[in-house]
């Protein structure tokens, strides 16, 4: 995401008025030494990488491609995420399988594994989700677009300040050829909370 160091873009549409104005603004502020283009690059990179579910998605993708890592992750989530450089949270990872679907909630407040999946969505903190996820999870999941067969067992995990949960979603069919980085792009925040399933690439692109 660097808009400043591009040259020779004749093939593009004319630059928008807003884009020109922002370039002019950056140029003036850099000239006055109030900011540097490198500092702007760093801020954008930091906020793009550290806000959102990137880290959790990396953990999930690793578990999908590396059975030994998956086993360590399920046995001791806290230690396994530290292997990838993520930490600061006691974590238990719960695995979705064809017969079991896991759903994470925090009935008391809004405990959430920030370090892995960013900031919690507004609905996660709502009284409605917190109460209904426990009382009628199947209905709540259907409202999120996840229609599970009656035979699927739903397990609810109530987060606390001491222990956070992360759902390890099922790897979608048709992704055998994808590498770890490509797989990570398919993994959504909602899938790691348990209110969505991970869709194969064709469906995810829609």
């Amino acid at each position, binding site marked *: *995401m*660097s*808009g*400043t*160091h591009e*040259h020779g873009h004749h093939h593009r549409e004319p*630059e*928008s*008025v*807003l*884009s*020109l*104005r*922002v*370039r*002019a*603004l*950056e*140029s*003036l*502020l*850099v000239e*006055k030494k*109030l*900011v*540097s*283009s490198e*500092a*702007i*690059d*760093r*801020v*954008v990179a*930091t*906020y*793009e990488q*550290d*806000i*959102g*579910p*990137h880290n959790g998605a990396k953990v999930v993708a690793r578990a999908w491609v590396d059975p030994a890592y998956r086993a360590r992750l399920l046995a001791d989530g806290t230690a396994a995420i530290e292997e990838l450089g993520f930490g600061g949270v006691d974590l238990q990872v719960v695995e979705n399988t064809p017969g079991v679907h896991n759903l994470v909630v925090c009935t008391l407040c809004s405990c959430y594994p920030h370090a892995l*999946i*960013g*900031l919690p*969505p507004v609905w996660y903190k709502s009284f409605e989700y917190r109460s209904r996820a426990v009382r009628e999870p199947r209905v709540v999941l259907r409202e999120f677009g996840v229609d599970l067969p009656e035979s699927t067992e739903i397990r609810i995990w109530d987060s606390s300040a001491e222990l956070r949960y992360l759902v390890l979603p099922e790897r979608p069919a048709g992704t055998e050829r994808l590498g770890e980085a490509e797989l990570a792009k398919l993994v*959504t*925040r*909602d899938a790691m909370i348990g209110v969505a399933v991970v869709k194969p690439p064709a469906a995810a692109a829609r």
Partner: protein
Amino acid sequence: MDAVPSREIADMKGAAALPRKNGELVFDEAWQGRIFGMTVAMSHDACFAWRDFQSHLIDEIGHAEREGESSTYYERWLHAFEQLLADKGLLDAVALDERTREFESGRRDDVF
């Protein structure tokens, strides 16, 4: 420079809340990332307090909503940022107009 996002910025609420998709920040065009980065970098360097910018942003959004403007979130952000810089005496509006025309006409093509 902080190595981690500031909660004060990331957690802005209501109309000022940063546009997101799947929890991640969304910049529809490159310039939106630039103006975001400029504002955050300057607040990290203590050119102004974040709450000063935030109150300008909320005012700008409120104004645009009342006037029924179709401007986007980051357009409003840009206006709020320009206003804040002018208030702090850090930017001359005439100089910005002139510089914008230089980029527009191709007389100037890069920041440096």
